[in-house]
């Protein structure tokens, strides 16, 4: 096989861009507005996966490697831009209060606080090239957001979603 640039051009006529994507939140637990959340997502990651590593030592050799358990990071960070309507705050706060009320300590059943979220990778014509389904999501953590008079910026929320596993959707 020749290593010319033409080969690459023939092979990848249209490289996937890091900015052609969106997220789908079919159900916002706690009553948030899904449209606002989907539109305001500013960055996300394509989740990875790996296997645990088992090394079996054998005599003087380097040993024999066999795969262990399938592992996920179980964390999917998404950054949302906030508006003065505070829709992102309201949605995430409502979801978290449904998981466990801060004042009463009363929470919901595990099966009622999780939803499946989707990351869609798009083609240039906005058709869906790949859909990744993150199963069993809930907002595990929201980072602190500093506010200050000497700043000139908009507010972003870094939301870390916990998930059970992901698959092709």
């Amino acid at each position, binding site marked *: 096989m020749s290593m010319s640039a033409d080969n690459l051009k023939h092979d990848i006529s249209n490289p996937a861009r890091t900015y052609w994507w969106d997220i789908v939140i079919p159900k916002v637990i706690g009553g948030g507005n899904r449209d606002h959340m989907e539109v305001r997502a500013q960055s996300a990651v394509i989740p990875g996966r790996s296997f645990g590593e*088992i090394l*079996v030592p054998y*005599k003087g*050799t380097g040993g*024999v490697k066999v795969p*262990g358990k399938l592992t996920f990071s179980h964390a999917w960070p998404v950054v949302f831009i906030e508006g003065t309507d505070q829709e992102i705050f309201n949605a995430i706060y409502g979801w978290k209060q449904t998981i466990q009320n801060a004042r009463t300590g009363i929470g919901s059943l595990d099966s009622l606080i999780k939803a499946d979220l989707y990351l869609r990778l798009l083609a240039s014509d906005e058709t869906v090239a790949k859909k990744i389904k993150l199963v069993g999501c809930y907002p595990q953590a929201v980072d602190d957001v500093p506010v200050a008079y000497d700043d000139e910026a908009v507010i972003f929320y870094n939301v870390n979603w916990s998930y059970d596993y992901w698959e092709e959707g």
Partner: protein
Amino acid sequence: MIIGKKAKMATFGFDLASLGSTLITKTWHLQRSYNWGLLMPMDFGGTLGYLVSQFCQDISFDDYRVSELSKRKHGAFERFYAGMQSIESVTLQFLVPVDNSVMDFFYAWYERVIDKDGYYYPKSNYKKSIFVMFYDQTKIESVRFELKGCFPKSHPKVHPSFTEEGVMIAEIILSIDSVEPSSLIGDIRAGITNAIGSIVGGS
């Protein structure tokens, strides 16, 4: 880098049987410590043992041994022979669902040993076999252990705490008479070995 040609691993220097790591890598199918399952095929207190089995997270039944040796003195020497064999207990750890099925199951099993008035039941009422199956990577059963004559020595032990963050785990200790392994793959292997042995005159 070798392109278009299969890289070959060298065999060992003093490996008289010519078993190199290449062969071993291809033929070893190692049992994973996490590919296993418990089956308790009995129902107590209106709770299905099959369902409770799914909550088992950890099991230990490793200390099956000849615990007492018969000793004979012969001049300046001692010779040892097999004596009593024993297995102390089986320890299991279960997740605790909020429907309390795991607790209900083992409390009901315990009450089949001794009733609330302190009377003992006959052993047929409480001694049961449970099974531990090992699976290969394709989820085909490789070995099945029958744990014979099991009954709970104690009620489930739990450790609730405000300072910890986790799911509740109940520890159960079962008394056990014996462990009996069986393996279809092992039977096939033994059959082939015996057949070859009978042809070449092995013992």
